[in-house]
Structures are given as C-alpha cells and as structure tokens.
C-alpha cells in the first residue's frame, strides 16, 4: 500500500484536533515549528548527535539464539530499546521534543507519565537542554512506581500528584492539558505517546521511527532481507508505530501489535482497546477507546502500568481498520511467563510492557519455520518491574 498519512491531520477518519480553543494557537505554532525543524539539517544533525552520543543509538538487533532454540521455529531477534539511555524507547521522543521546545524558545516543559518511564525520559532530556520540567502523575501510579518518582526528582523535575478521576495515566494527561491551557504561552507539553491532538501523533511517530529504520538496516545486514514479522506491544502505541512505520509499505512484512489482555478479555479487566474497544473522542483525538455505552471512559487494567491506557494512537486505529497491522491481546499471566523465560534463557529482564510482545512473538515463532525471522521490539528494561513480578509470584 502507498502510505502517506496523516492527511490534513487525520489518519483516515481518525485523529484530528478535539481540544479547547485556547490550545489551538499553541498546537498551530507547534505544527509550524515542527514542519520547519523536521526539514532543517542543523536540527536533524543535532538530534542524531544526541541520540548517538547521549542516548546510545543505534541500539543492537540481537539474535536471541537461546530463546529461538527454546521455542523452536522462526529465528527470534530482539530490538534492544531496553539498552537506550533511560531504560526505554521513550528517550527517542523526549530528546526530540525537548530539542524542538528549546528551538521554539520554550523554557517550561510539562509531561504526563503513567509508569514513570516517560516522566524519567522527559526529566533527563530537560536536564540536557536546561529546561524546567514538571511531571503529572496519577496518585495510584505514584504509589506503584515510587522508584521512578525518586528518579524524576533526582533528575531535577517537579512531580505533581494527580488525585482527580481514576488517578492514573489518563487523569495525568487531563491535568497536563489543564496546565497547558493555563500556561499556554511559555509552556511546551511533551506528550509521551502517539496520542493527543494533531500534530502530536505524527511528531512522536517520526521521532520513534528511528527504531524501525534501524531494524530495516540491521535486518539486511544480519539476515540479508526484511523480517517475516515484527511484534511490538501497544499501550498508546509509540514503540509499535516506531517499529512499524518504515515497513508499512513492505507488504511482505507482517506487523503485530500486542495489547494488554489483563486478567483476560472475558473478565473485562484489561486494556485491549483495539481488540475490544469502540470509536470515540478522548484527549483531543478520535480513536478506539475503552468506553461504556454512553461514552464514559472506563478504567482499564494491566499488570504493566505502561499499557494501562483506555485509548490508543489514532494511527493504530487506522492501521487496524486497513488491516495492515494485526492486533492481539496478551494477558497478565502470559506476560509474566514471557518475562521469566526471557530473563532465564537470554539474561535479559524485559519491561512488563515488552514482555507482552515477547509472549506473542514466541507463539508466532513456533508456528513458523527456521528460515523466517521475527523481530520483537524490546521497548524497555524490566528493573522497574522486578518488585511487581516478585509480588505476583509470591501471591
């Protein structure tokens, strides 16, 4: 398929700008600046310099030979975003956006965070570029992810605890948007995933696409061709879009987005937005949502805080409807199993988010044969989740 989206801020019917009028000038300014800087050689060079020397790009594509042997089937390769500075793919986006903010002359950065990875990513990027950073985090997440709260504070960020609504990621986004409305002139809102009003889903996708571009190059170097399939986890969906985007027109490459199945789809306690949700409007975008019959946004569930979001990037909604990407759920138990297997067989402790992709990747590999190559994007490392898994195993 020929792919050239977004078109006028939309991915088909998805995306758009459902935001209060106060934010429109800010979003227009952002779009204008991004259009200029994304084509500016100086900007691009400075960005790739930071990604290389500060964040550690390119990240390796590692042939997981033990896991491949354990599963028996296609060769499994891991895209090691867990090795990126900050511990997750989030840094690709935060370096990009904070550099953009600096060029735009904004001194104050705000961001939301769920598990705290994007908060940490924004805090470290703000430190590098000398920007003031404030992070909004739901009080439930502050409680669950104390270590990341401490990390953000060490990095010089101010962390605001959000006590409204369900006190999780979606409420942190609400509060960040409210802050932005009130302080729109001097503040830059670094959104953490391919969500929100246009141009955010496009900007975040572009900054994360470095993952997919590297996969493409490394695949050719390592196995002289494109992968048979790429598997990535989807919460908001930034590491997945980043991995998929450079392959969308390569029809021979199957793309799989794995959502959090929580306690199981039938239990109703999950975050499998694309698998089970319906279309609606939240956080400035038209997209698939977890919502009830009358349009109230539902509380979601996942063992992994990073996937615990009732919406999804509008581009994913489009790719689902176009059937270019297949979206599947993976439940908590399966994710924990994959978490343990990868730790044991490859000596890599993955983030619980990434473990969802690993779990489905193993299933897929088993059905394929040894000449096939599967790439699983390991979006982050699992140090932050060790305690949660430990508690789960004891239980």
């Amino acid at each position, binding site marked *: 398929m020929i792919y050239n989206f977004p078109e006028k801020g939309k991915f088909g019917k998805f995306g758009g700008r459902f935001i209060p009028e106060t934010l429109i000038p800010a979003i227009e300014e952002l779009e204008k600046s991004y259009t200029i800087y994304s084509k500016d050689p100086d900007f691009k060079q400075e960005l790739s310099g930071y990604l290389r020397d500060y964040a550690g790009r390119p990240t390796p594509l590692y042939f997981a030979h033990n896991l491949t042997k354990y599963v028996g089937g296609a060769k499994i390769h891991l895209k090691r975003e867990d090795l990126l500075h900050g511990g997750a793919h989030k840094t690709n986006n935060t370096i990009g956006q904070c550099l953009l903010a600096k060029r735009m002359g904004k001194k104050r950065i705000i961001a939301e965070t769920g598990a705290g990875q994007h908060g940490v990513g924004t805090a470290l990027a703000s430190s590098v570029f000398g920007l003031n950073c404030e992070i909004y985090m739901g009080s439930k997440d502050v409680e669950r992810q104390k270590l990341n709260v401490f990390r953000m504070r060490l990095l010089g960020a101010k962390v605001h605890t959000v006590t409204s609504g369900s006190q999780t990621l979606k409420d942190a986004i609400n509060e960040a948007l409210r802050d932005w409305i009130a302080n729109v002139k001097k503040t830059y809102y670094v959104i953490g995933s391919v969500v929100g009003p246009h141009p955010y889903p496009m900007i975040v996708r572009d900054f994360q696409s470095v993952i997919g571009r590297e996969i493409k190059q490394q695949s050719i170097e390592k196995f002289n061709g494109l992968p048979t399939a790429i598997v990535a986890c989807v919460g908001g969906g930034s590491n997945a879009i980043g991995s998929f985007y450079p392959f969308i027109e390569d029809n021979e490459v199957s793309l799989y987005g794995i959502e959090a199945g929580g306690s199981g789809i039938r239990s109703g306690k999950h975050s499998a937005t694309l698998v089970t949700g319906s279309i609606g409007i939240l956080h400035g975008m038209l997209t698939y*949502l977890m919502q009830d019959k009358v349009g109230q946004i539902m509380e979601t569930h996942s063992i992994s805080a990073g996937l615990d979001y009732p919406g999804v990037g509008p581009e994913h909604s489009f790719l689902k409807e176009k059937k270019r990407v297949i979206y599947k759920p993976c439940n908590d138990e399966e994710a924990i199993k994959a978490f343990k297997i990868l730790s044991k067989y490859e000596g890599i402790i993955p983030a619980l988010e990434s473990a969802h992709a690993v779990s489905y990747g193993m299933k897929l590999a088993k059905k394929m044969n040894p000449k096939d190559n599967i790439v699983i994007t390991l979006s982050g490392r699992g140090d932050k989740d060790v305690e949660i898994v430990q508690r789960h195993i004891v239980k």
Partner: protein
Amino acid sequence: MKPNNLNRIDKKFRELKNKREKALICYVVAGYPDIKTSEKIIDTLIESGADMIEIGIPFSDPIADGKTIQEALHSSLTLGITPQQCLELSERIRVKHPEIPLLIMTYSNILFRRGYDNFSRDAKKKGIDGFILPDVSIEESLEYVNAAKKNEMSTIFLVSPNTSELRLKMIIEHCSGFLYAVSVFGITGERQKFHKYTFAFIRKVRKLTKGKIPIAAGFGISQPEHVKNMIDAGADAVIVGSAIIRKIQETKTKKTSLALLSNYILDLKLACRENKKRS
C-alpha cells in the same frame, strides 16, 4: 425573521435588550448533589433571575474544567447519572419553565457516542435549545454542526483571548445562539480578579461580531463586580458556574442552602440590570 419564529435563546436576548438588561447564564451539574436536588437548584436559579440554564452532563474526563466542577461531575458519575437521566431532568425543567433557554454543556464524546444526529434529535424532544462543547474545535465541527442545525439546536462555540482575528471570524460563522468568550487563560474556576487582557479581549470580540451574535463572558466569574466589569467591556451575558457549584458544596447539608443560593443569584442579576444607568 418574525419574532415568533425566533428560538428561545434569540427571543431571550431580544427581550433583555428591550429591557436594557444583560443576561445571567447559570451552570449546574445535573445529578449534583443528586438528581432531585439539582432539579430544585435549577428551579431556584430560574425563580431568582437566571435568564438561561446550562445543564452540565457529567463526563469522565473534563479537560476544560477546574477542581470545583470536576468534583461535582465526578460525584454525579459516581451516583451513576447517565446522559439520559440528564435529558429527562431537562424535560421536567422545560415543562415547568416553558420559555427559559436550556443548554447542554458537556464534552464531545457524550454526543458522539449516541451519534450527533440522534443526540440532537433526543435533546430537541426534551426541550433543549443548544449545545456547548468545549472540546470541539471548528475544524472538527462539521458533522456536529450539521446534525445540530437539522434539529434546530444552537451550536455555541468558545473563543479565547489568544484566538486570532481570522479564527474568530470563522468561528462566528459556525456559532449560533451566542458566542462564549472564555475570559481567561485557563480552566473553569473562580478568580479573584481579572487582568486587563480579559477586557481588551471582550472589546475585540465586540468589535468583530458587530452585533451579529451576542457575547457571553464565562470562566472565573463569581462576584457582582466581575459581572459589571464584563458588561462594561461589552458582554451581552455572563456565565457563572463554579461559584454556584461551590455554594452548593458549602451548604450541602444545610436546609438554608437554596435560600442562600437565591440571594446570591439575585445579587448577580442586579448587576446585570445596573448597566441601564451606565449605558
């Protein structure tokens, strides 16, 4: 257009103009503190001088609202209040008060979920006159405006102090009933006082609308003094929301609460009348 063809909003503005008064628009959260009490509150507001009522349908993620309204919306949702119950409440109000303009204020997903057309038709049947959706930009409004128009619903759009002249003109084109001028940078909630930019903004809007559509100033207004200031700057109406909710919160347990609320509204309405002398 003949006067008897005017909708309730236009009629109200015409009537007030003849009396040389400005409109007092009051916002309530349907189902706060409960459905029955919110009905009594609306009755009280109308009887005390409110010219129009905005009925807030709770939404789980109200990004344009401050703490006070957020908490009221959340409380209503916790009671399980549905958009349907809010429409039924509107219908009961309509029966008691045939002439008062009733507006629905909520977020786009509540209408989108039922379908813009379905929701507009249902609202029409219940006696609603228009919608205020703070998260619908004009870029995203085509389907909504068409559905609302078809069902004779006014579509009230918001403009803010940083809205460009070009956009203001575009918004005026799509807007009916009145233009909602957001007086501050920020979300709903009471302000002690307003800055100069607020009044400069109202004056600018006044100039650009050229009297084609009434202007209602909202966000942060809580005192008669604020009301006078907004009117002096050129507003045809003022919208009071958070301050009313806070009065209800504070006196939730006391029986005298409705009487106190009534006095408060009388004072605000008085400020809407006093401009007679000045103009």
